[in-house]
């Protein structure tokens, strides 16, 4: 099967509602059951899941590859951090501005990407990811980016009267973003635009004959995808209260892609599974046998591809 094959879940609506309810309860309970550092980790997993969801919209639906989504993640993080260095700007607003900037960057990148297909597009986005840390270090941009040292921002605190510590509060902020974005993405893909994305992926000529303007649809998919991943970047800046060029290396882009494939390409809820894998697997591999963690990671990844060729999310398809 191709990487861009889309997964359709065929669970009955009641089962879906029950599963959804259980996940919601579990997600709300998490920060009360875990200790501070674990809550911090859970928040990071959610951030990564949002980034993966952004890539999924691009690859799983419109059929375009990106090995460079870390660059949009970085852009979102830096824009957010830039607005929050003095602590007077509302942080939700800063994250949203980061998303809008990434939407524009995504459109801007989507246009040249129209000329490239499959593996060539993967390479072009790859170069974006390679270039990003260096761009962020450029001396002429230091005034905005903080250069090699990056930017430090204020970690948001829970509003007065809400008995949550900063980590718990941030968890809920990120959870709210994840939930809203999930609703927006599922709304988008279940309607006319979602079908246009899939049509362009499956058969661009037939799509045009149906009245779909393929170029616009591809560029729009890039814009929305970059926006979602950019919001994830902005949230990551809030969570770590710090952005630096070397947090956004090529490895981040690869992680987002691995998370997408493990969770299931074209399966939106798979993002959380992929994020958990990408976040915890290196440490888990390390605890199994130190010194061979890379080998173990690789073997597990290959095993998943063999046992669940449509990603772990694909197993939920009956």
């Amino acid at each position: 099967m191709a990487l861009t094959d889309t997964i359709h879940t065929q669970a009955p609506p009641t089962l879906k509602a029950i599963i959804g309810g259980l996940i919601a309860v579990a997600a709300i309970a998490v920060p009360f059951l875990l200790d501070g550092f674990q809550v911090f980790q859970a928040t990071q997993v959610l951030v990564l899941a949002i980034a993966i969801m952004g890539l999924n919209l691009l690859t799983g639906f419109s059929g375009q590859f990106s090995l460079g989504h870390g660059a949009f993640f970085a852009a979102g993080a830096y824009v957010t951090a830039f607005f929050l260095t003095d602590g007077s700007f509302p942080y939700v607003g800063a994250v949203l501005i980061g998303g809008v900037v990434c939407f524009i960057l995504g459109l801007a990148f989507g246009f040249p990407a129209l000329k490239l297909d499959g593996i060539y597009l993967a390479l072009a986005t790859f170069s974006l990811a390679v270039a990003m840390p260096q761009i962020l270090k450029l001396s002429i941009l230091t005034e905005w980016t903080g250069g090699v040292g990056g930017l430090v921002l204020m970690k948001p605190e829970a509003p007065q009267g809400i008995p949550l510590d900063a980590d718990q509060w941030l968890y809920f902020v990120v959870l709210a973003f994840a939930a809203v974005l999930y609703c927006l993405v599922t709304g988008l893909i279940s309607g006319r635009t979602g079908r246009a994305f899939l049509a362009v992926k499956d058969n661009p000529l037939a799509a045009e004959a149906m009245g779909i303007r393929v170029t616009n649809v591809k560029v729009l998919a890039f814009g929305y995808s970059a926006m979602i991943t950019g919001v994830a970047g902005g949230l990551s800046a809030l969570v770590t209260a710090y952005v630096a060029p070397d947090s956004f290396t090529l490895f981040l882009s690869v992680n987002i892609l691995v998370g997408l494939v493990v969770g299931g390409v074209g399966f939106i809820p798979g993002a959380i599974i992929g994020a958990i894998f990408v976040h915890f697997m290196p440490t888990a591999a390390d605890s199994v046998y130190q010194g061979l963690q890379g080998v173990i990671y690789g073997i597990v990844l290959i095993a998943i591809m063999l046992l669940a060729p449509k990603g772990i999310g694909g197993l939920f398809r009956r």
Partner: protein
Amino acid sequence: MHSAKRIESSPLLSVKDVCVAFGGLNALRDISFDLHRGEILGLIGPNGAGKTTLFNCLSRLYSPKSGEIRLLGENLLAFRRDQIAGRGIGRTFQNIACFGSMTVRQNILTGCHSHMRSSSLAQALRLPSALAEERRFREEIEEVIEWLDLRKDAERLVDDLPFGTRKRVEFARALAMRPKIILLDEPAAGLNHEEVMALGDLIRRTRDERGITVLLVEHHMSLVMSVSDRVVVLNFGEKIAEGAPAQIQKDPEVIRAYLGGHAA
């Protein structure tokens, strides 16, 4: 039998002196014919005659080197490919071109794309207007699903369906485009005898019950001759005959073209 010939003075579609060349190969040379409202026009010719090329000109996939194509007087060549659906031309493809990763219902809904208006933002936000529009079109296509007997497969992925069913999905998708004209490129290819009979019936009913004008490319002679009001014959990119089926079947040049090594 099919007395419903409602030929009017001004044609619905008029093709005039269309030439298409691929490098040195003249795929179409000075092709002219009219398609009248309510007509079923058969377009036949041996392999490589240029039938699909002509369809691709109507869909704007290919641009003629010279010539004119007018739909109700409007210059079709001035439009982009994606604007053709909105002008009222629906089509199927010689090699099935369904959207494989979608369900049958989603495929057919995609045919409604050019009639739907809600923006991507409205859909993401699930605005009532977008939801209402989606519901309206979902109801509309139920009739098409029923008409083509696709009810039991409606929620299945097209990739999982047999060839004959996929052809019906493509037909349904073209009908969902609410076309004035439907272009069918070898709809009978790969179908068994009963399926071909059912198809002939379907094509007639498409015209009679839905008022859609049909341009039919087909190698299956008995099908073309039984459903068409008129037939246009192409050979090596040239029009060699045009007329009623009975007349075409007796035309010596047509017989020669078909005996020239490319028996249908």
